[in-house]
């Protein structure tokens, strides 16, 4: 009995001792604010990762950037020599995961899809979209051996095939799914979530946001899927699919061009209390996005280094994604399109249920800090 007690105490001491800090905490150098930032871990959020990996360059060129404290997890946000905030990066996942984490108070700022964020805001969460991240970057992929080669071919196949085409999607509120459904409607192709109605030409199959479409593609359970990058590039890289159409090109012609995908969101609380650090963060993202636009090779290499997706995958993926960190007119128009689309599918049941698209966009977005950040950078000549 006594021996067992000693063993238990020793083990407990060892475990507690395992909490040895990586570096002793330095009271002087600790920045005033800790911002917890949620992200998904793939190249839609490349702006953040480039900022993290190229922190030295940004600090040297513009005096503002990220300094690594613990790789991939903790970075200090420095502006003009001063530590403005400490950033804790948390890989919380995509889709509804990020706004869910924010609603539980686990993160202060989140990078993620515009539609899920809006849905949570609709449900009463005090979220605001404060900055765009990227547009487009999603495709329709069909099996390698499919006779379909483009959208026209897809439409023809859907109309003429004796069995409905099965197309996979990631999640009910996924951006790719919304665009695809809008296109099917425009082409007047009847679609449904199952094949019970004999008129259905396209059946949408949920392959789950944890899983990937690849297993179902391999066993031919689905004929194709609609999904964001880099999932598309992975499928192509593994030889399990071919890109048949970019969703931005789907009908109605022009409607989906530059459709907003991921954004930066924050709680109103964070915006009120930490406006300064958040603005500094947005400045960094603006500069980072500019670098991605200018130096694609660097962007690809950074993406591969951070996300651990292969270089070939990133090479195929990044050129298809529109990285934009400023709320341009096109982006605002894209948000308005979302509002319409989401109304069509009656996604909003709360705050935005009866709001007009303009009202929705005005309410859910708070772009003041972003615009201010861009203006300041332009004034200093750092942003084009």
């Amino acid at each position, binding site marked *: 009995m006594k021996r067992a007690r000693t063993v238990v105490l020793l083990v407990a001491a060892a475990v507690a001792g395992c909490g040895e800090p990586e570096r002793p905490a330095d009271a002087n150098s600790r920045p005033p604010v800790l911002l917890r930032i949620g992200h998904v871990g793939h190249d839609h959020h490349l702006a953040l990762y480039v900022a993290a990996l190229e922190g030295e360059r940004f600090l040297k060129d513009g005096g503002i950037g990220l300094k690594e404290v613990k790789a991939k997890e903790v970075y200090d946000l420095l502006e003009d020599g001063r530590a403005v905030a400490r950033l804790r990066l948390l890989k919380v996942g995509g889709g509804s995961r990020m706004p869910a984490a924010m609603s*539980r108070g686990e993160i202060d700022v989140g990078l993620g899809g515009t539609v899920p964020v809006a849905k949570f805001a609709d449900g009463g969460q005090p979220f605001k979209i404060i900055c765009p991240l990227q547009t487009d970057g999603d495709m329709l992929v069909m099996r390698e051996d499919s006779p379909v080669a483009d959208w026209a071919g897809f439409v023809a196949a859907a109309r003429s095939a004796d069995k409905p085409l099965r197309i996979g999607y990631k999640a009910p509120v996924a951006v790719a799914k919304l665009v695809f459904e809008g296109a099917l409607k425009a082409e007047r192709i009847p679609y449904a979530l199952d094949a019970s109605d004999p008129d259905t030409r396209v059946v949408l199959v949920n392959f789950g946001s944890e899983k990937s479409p690849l297993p179902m593609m391999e066993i031919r359970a689905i004929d194709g899927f609609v999904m964001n990058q880099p999932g598309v590039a992975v499928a192509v890289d593994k*030889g399990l699919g071919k890109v048949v159409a970019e969703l931005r090109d789907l009908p109605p012609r022009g409607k989906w061009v530059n459709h907003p995908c991921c954004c930066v969101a924050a709680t109103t609380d964070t915006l009120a209390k930490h406006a300064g650090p958040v603005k500094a963060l947005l400045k960094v993202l603006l500069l980072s996005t500019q670098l991605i636009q200018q130096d694609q090779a660097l962007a690809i290499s950074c993406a591969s280094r951070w996300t651990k997706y292969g270089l070939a995958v990133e090479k195929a993926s990044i050129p298809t994604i529109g990285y934009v960190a400023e709320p341009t007119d096109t982006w605002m128009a894209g948000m308005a399109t979302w509002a319409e689309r989401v109304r069509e599918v009656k996604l909003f049941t709360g705050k935005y249920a009866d709001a007009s698209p303009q009202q929705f966009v005005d309410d859910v977005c708070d772009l003041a800090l972003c615009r201010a950040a861009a203006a300041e950078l332009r004034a200093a000549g750092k942003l084009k």
Partner: protein
Amino acid sequence: MNAGRIALRIALGAAVPVAVLGVWHVASAHSVVVPSIGSVVEVLAHPFREPANLDATSLAGGAAASVLRVACGFALAVVTALPIGLLMGRCRPVMDLLSPAITAAMVVSPVAWMPVAIIAFGLSSPATVLHGQEAWRYGVLDQLRFAIVAVVWFGAFIPIAINTAAGARNVRESYIEAARALGASRGQLLRKVILPGAAPAIVTGLRLGGGIAWRVIIVAEIFPGTRGGLGYTITTAHEQAAYEYAFASIVVICGIGLLLDGVLRLAEARVARWRPKER
């Protein structure tokens, strides 16, 4: 036993694994999703290497994180379930109070409680409690997310409590009376008669609980916010189509599960030594 018999036993024992390997080999030749045996062996051979094509820790790191979480959850379960089980077994009102709840909870997979655990605990861990904002410095403590440990605890608690209660209840009354006649106090009765008498049942409960705890951890780690652990590695491997890591993780999971079960079986045999063998 002659050489022929021994050879036969070995052949039979090896038959299923060999068949599995054969099927695997054939499948992997025609599939992208099923990795080749070679690629999986390659991963297993370098357990401390950080994966090049996967955003996850090394296999050993993942195993360590999962084992640590299970160990904590299991230890918590033992510490809570033993006294409660003993109380249930010896005290009728306690049994009447807890038995319906436990029986109801028994049929629910512990993983179904994960969302509840997340709402209750979020991403908090001993590190966040002790060190608040500096929590990220304390890697190991931060890995022990309360939500995950809670789910493991829940899974292991129930079989341990139930088996302990049954064992305590079934200790032969005459042993207890013999000890009472020798002057044993209630505490002494508990320590010297009830606990040893219930020991075989308790160890069976530990074995069942341990098995469930290990099975649960993999699924529990799929849930958001976790980094590290074999469950996380498997999910991420699916996302990034690095299937050899998924398979390698599964092999490690099986291995550790077998080890755990083996150890507990040994304990079970040792404790039940005094039971007369059935003839």
